[in-house]
């Protein structure tokens, strides 16, 4: 494909990401917000693909769409009277909000313009990214990896303990 086609597709995905993210924030219906997140996550995954990070892109879909979004939807659907509650999406605290926005934007733009340009790595990536990720996780980054797995294991045990505790509480049933 030509460079132009890539640019068009990139802007398409960028637009999808930005507009669906805006919809998540401005929608008055929690369910619509949650479903709109699907498109945001997808757009983000597509942008990862444009950065040649296809592993991260797939992980993004697995973790955020398969895990977090489904959890969110479950939570929203099991909440009582979710449709009756009218969400507040008005603009509140106009002055502090504007100051914060301008400050953040200035900071980001200043960093963007004061840093010369993109800093491409001198090392050219060879072969499959997945293999490199595997080797790096199991060699250089084995400690953070193991720590993350212990944190997750503790979280799992905690969740199982909480769920069990409630079950033993009403034994007479």
């Amino acid at each position, binding site marked *: *494909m*030509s460079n132009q*086609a890539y640019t068009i597709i990139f802007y398409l995905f960028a637009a999808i990401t930005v507009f669906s993210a805006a919809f998540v924030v401005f929608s008055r219906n929690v*369910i*619509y917000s949650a*479903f709109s997140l*699907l498109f945001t996550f997808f757009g983000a995954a597509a942008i990862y693909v444009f950065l040649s990070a*296809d*592993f991260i892109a*797939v*992980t993004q*879909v*697995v973790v955020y*769409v*398969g*895990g977090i*979004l*489904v959890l969110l*939807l*479950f939570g929203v*659907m099991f909440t009582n009277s979710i449709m009756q509650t009218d969400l507040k999406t008005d603009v509140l605290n106009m002055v502090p909000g504007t100051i914060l926005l301008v400050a953040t934007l200035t900071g980001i733009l200043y960093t963007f313009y004061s840093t010369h340009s993109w800093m491409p790595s001198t090392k050219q990536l060879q072969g*499959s*990214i*997945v*293999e490199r990720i595997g080797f790096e996780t199991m060699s250089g980054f084995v400690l953070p990896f193991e720590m993350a797995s212990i944190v997750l294991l503790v979280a799992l045990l905690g969740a199982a303990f909480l769920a069990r505790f409630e079950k033993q509480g009403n034994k007479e049933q």
Partner: protein
Amino acid sequence: MGSSINAWSDWMTGFNPMGIPLGLIILAAIPLVFIAVYALTYGVYGERKISAFMQDRLGPMEVGYWGILQTLADILKLIQKEDVVPTSADKFLFVIGPGILFVGSFLAFAVLPFSPAFIGANLNVGLFYAIGIVSIEVVGILAAGWGSNNKWSLYGAVRSVAQIVSYEIPAAIALLCGAMMAGTLDMQKITMLQSGDFGFAHFYLFQSPIAWLPFLIYFIASLAEVNRAPFDIPEAESELVAGYFTEYSGMKFAVIFLAEYGSMFMVSAIISIVFLGGWNSPLPNIGGLALNTWTSGPSWGAFWIIMKGFFFIFVQMWLRWTLPRLRVDQLMYLCWKVLTPFAFVSFVLTAIWVIYVP
């Protein structure tokens, strides 16, 4: 168009007359046409006939010879039907639900190698992508179930999602065993590593003494992922009318079923690629009788993977008319207390086998 690897799909990617990437569109349309044709013939007609023979009936016999045109008549009927959206339904989610569902099952076809010369997208994370993309279907089911504004639909959707999300874990670990034996996640490479003169003996199912365990675990988990019996509690007719598609009729109903048949073929193709050699011919070369060489090549490859997929779909249909439905608690018991521990065991054993034995 030679017979070298991905020759057909590479040729099609380069085919853009007048600057329009027509080849890419055709490339994406091929699996779509395949799903439609197969769902129409083997999916609906085949399932009705197979279920009929299992129950000692004849099945559809009126339209055409042996009822062969029955599905066409059904499709004509579905197209003519009024597009009903219930008044109290959430219009947007109700309409978009079947669409998301179908997109979810169709996206995985991008990484299925249909032949040595054809694959939609030769990703080096192909298998991971195929496992992960199923989660789109989950969102579609939830949209359909919630959008219908019907208690049965919502229950069906919630059950279905709980089931898919839980069974993803043993399924992914079982497929990881296959990926470990191959040492790659690239679907085309996994298939190529299983080719050889001895045909089926090179398939991963027969390459290690433990491989049958992840194979079986993935098969069971894949049944649950596509909501087929004995795991069809999301659409349990006797309890929930029809689960998350209770309110659907006409073409939306057809799209939901197209998605179901699409994902049935998808899981069958994945299990054949990871454990049964994908497009490789199962026939061995016996001396001068070079059966394997004769039955290899791009067109034969397409034949073999589709036949292997159809075989597993036949097994799925067979099980559907043989086994009773599981209860919800039995379903969760099977997933968390049986399949997941056994998947971990098979993972460790496969790792030991891959590192120390061959």
